């Protein structure tokens, strides 16, 4: 029985197959990153942060990562970076996700550096970017003020006379950041503001979260100096642009984590015997792992397209970023929970690493807005594209 070559979607989209892969240099960097993180970020290091109520990140790893030049990989050389492209960030992100790294890489590199490069003045770029590359500045994105999706109308933080007042919760990496990007109202319009968190009037309170291997805080601002990034009233649009960029890189982190979860499940299933044979020989486990593989491949393929759009600053970026984020969130959630299931009882213990991925998958799905929000955005983009076609 051979398939008829006839499918319902008759509008065939052109294939663009020519060079849809990372370069040899980028693959080399990826291998280097993996080797570096295996040495410097084994899960025992992650667990130190997880198990110590006082710790919310790994400053030593952060220094080492800065030493590798990763923080400034995509920052132009004129601003102290390596001047590489976003594709190099993608391969690093994948490895950080695989390692469940307990550092503020996303907040600093995907969010703060991208925002400043996107909308910062020359003065802001010169002030911030070299210090990011050097590991001296840690970023945080402060948009949320309460439960539910970000909305233009719900923001109460206010900037008056260049000074910010209000409360943001939760702010990922807010407890350890040097600078925050704060969405706030100024003269009735929403703007995105750069705030030095060492200023007087900033109160930080560390939050307990589902993923204790990452920092999160409540930030209270009382007349704290704030300078706007980009134009007045551009706050929400700018946040969306920044989130599109971050979404692609986070998708690589999630895909890296999902791949690791599949590997763990596979390794355990091959070694664990029940009823006289490896549990990997039962179809219930085989097909579960096949499903994990399928989801990971869909995530990876969408992430690649996002990487291309990000790196070329293509008009497809919002659509590609949404798709990458949705696919990667699904793959990591599925992979992390079915990895526990494949392990059985031992997977439910604190001592085994399964729950690190389960927690991190929740953190990564929520940190840049939940998948449900991205699905709505994606369809809005498709509607527009469809109407224009």
């Amino acid at each position, binding site marked *: 029985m051979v398939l008829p070559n006839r499918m319902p979607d008759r509008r065939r989209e052109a294939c663009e197959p020519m060079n849809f892969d990372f370069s040899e240099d980028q693959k080399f960097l990826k291998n280097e990153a993996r080797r570096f993180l295996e040495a410097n970020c084994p899960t025992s290091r992650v667990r130190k942060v997880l198990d110590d109520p006082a710790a919310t990140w790994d400053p030593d790893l952060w220094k080492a990562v800065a030493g590798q030049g990763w923080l400034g990989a995509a920052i132009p050389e004129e601003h102290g970076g390596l001047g590489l492209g976003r594709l190099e960030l993608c391969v690093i992100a994948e490895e950080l996700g695989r390692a469940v790294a307990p550092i503020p890489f996303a907040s600093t590199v995907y969010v703060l550096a991208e925002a400043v490069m996107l909308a910062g003045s020359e003065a802001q770029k010169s002030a911030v970017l070299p210090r990011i590359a050097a590991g001296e500045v840690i970023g945080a994105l402060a948009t949320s003020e309460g*439960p539910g999706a970000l909305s233009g109308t719900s923001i109460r933080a206010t900037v008056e006379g260049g000074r910010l007042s209000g409360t943001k*919760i939760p702010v990922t990496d807010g407890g350890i950041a040097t600078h925050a990007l704060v969405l706030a109202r100024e003269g009735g319009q929403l703007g995105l503001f750069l705030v030095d968190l060492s200023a007087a009037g900033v109160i930080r309170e560390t939050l307990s*979260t589902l993923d204790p291997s990452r920092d999160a805080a409540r930030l209270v601002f009382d007349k704290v100096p704030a300078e706007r990034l980009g134009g007045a009233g551009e706050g929400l649009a700018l946040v969306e642009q920044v989130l599109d960029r971050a979404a692609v890189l986070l998708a690589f982190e999630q895909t890296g984590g999902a791949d690791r979860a599949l590997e763990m499940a596979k390794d355990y299933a091959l070694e664990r015997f029940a*009823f006289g044979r490896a549990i990997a020989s*039962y179809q219930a486990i085989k097909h579960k792992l096949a499903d994990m593989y399928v989801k990971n491949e869909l995530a990876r393929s969408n992430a690649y397209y996002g990487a291309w759009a990000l790196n070329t600053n293509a008009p497809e970026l919002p659509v590609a970023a949404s798709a990458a984020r949705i696919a990667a969130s699904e793959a990591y959630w599925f992979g992390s929970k079915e990895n526990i299931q494949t392990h059985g009882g031992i997977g439910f213990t604190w001592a085994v690493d399964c729950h690190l991925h389960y927690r991190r998958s929740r953190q990564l799905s*929520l940190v840049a807005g939940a998948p*449900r929000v991205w699905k709505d955005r994606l369809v809005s983009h498709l509607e527009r594209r469809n109407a224009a076609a």
Partner: protein
Amino acid sequence: MDFNDTPQEAAYRQKVRTWLEANAPRSRDANDDGEGGGDLSAARAWQAKKAAAGFACITWPKEWGGQGGTPIDSVIFGEEEARYPIPSNPFQIGLGMCVPTVMNFADPGTKDRFGPPAIRGEEIWCQLFSEPSGGSDVAAARTRAEKAADGSGDWIINGQKVWTTGAQFSDFGIVIVRTDPNLPKHKGLTMFWVDMKDPGIEIRPIHQMSGGSGFNEVFFADVRVKDSQRLGGVGDGWKVSLVTLMNERLAVGGATGTGWSQFLEAARDTTGSDGAPLLQESSVREKLADWYVQSEGLRHARNRTMTALSKGQTPGPESSIGKVVAATLMQDLANEAVEMLDQYGIINDPDLAPLSGGFHGSLMMAPGLRIAGGTDEILRNIIAERVLGLPGDIRLDKDVAFKDVPTGR
């Protein structure tokens, strides 16, 4: 088809109500952690009170110290009791699984010794079946018992059990051990009862991913037991364990609360990016409807089981559907609830995030629920084989000496 008690049932319910009204606690003890841990004195006192009034172990035969009541009597008592803030129940495993096994297989003296104190809540039992080398595969037990060299007829137990709920506060346990590794897997097992205070027994709590430690590892180092502690014949351990496990499935099938109504409340109280309550969004409504329908389906499946019970039928393996549905439902629902809060969903502090507190707990417990008492996969096998009559999996561990069963090591 109706929901009314028969006259006899109505009379029993009235009797129960009257007694509870006069005797049930009015508030829950602050030290009660709800998992059968913490301070057990309130739980013991309540159990003793029920036993004295004839409301403990209602369905047990009178010669075991029970009331010889019907399953429906027991259900009626449970329903009425649940209206009060009763203490958590650390006796469930003992009275539900272990002591009935003892009562089925021990000699009269042993029965007299253990039945009454267990019913009164004076002695707590645990069940020592699972091992590191075989979770779902109970018959793969490697903990061994060998005849003592001194000719006393005693047995010496060495090995390790795992996932033992309540071992830390139990007085006694029933343990399945291998007495002959040269026999096929299911034939070389024997069941004993053991004193958990024996110095050769070491109990280590297991730190769960959810933070709690309700389960334990239990190590046996040269633990000596008398041959009179044997339950059933030498080599009959598997058959004995099936009696115990049958009771486990019945207990587990009942735990099917799900949280749809909390989800409804959370969706009503959270707004989307358009400022309207999320409960107005069709995606939220459709999921909520699906969960409600599944929860109600389980509730009414239970009603059907209870009806069968009341007609004297024995509920079969079909009660396995309860946990298959409820555990996944719990995980999906909790995750959706957390994601509904968007960034805020990550916050774990119940003071800051009262909406998500319970959902966080469910999210971290659900992976355990999908595994404990039979994984999703094992339960689907049970449904396929024992309900639908499909063939068993091909087994490589039968008809060979246990020591020759492949273990991958």
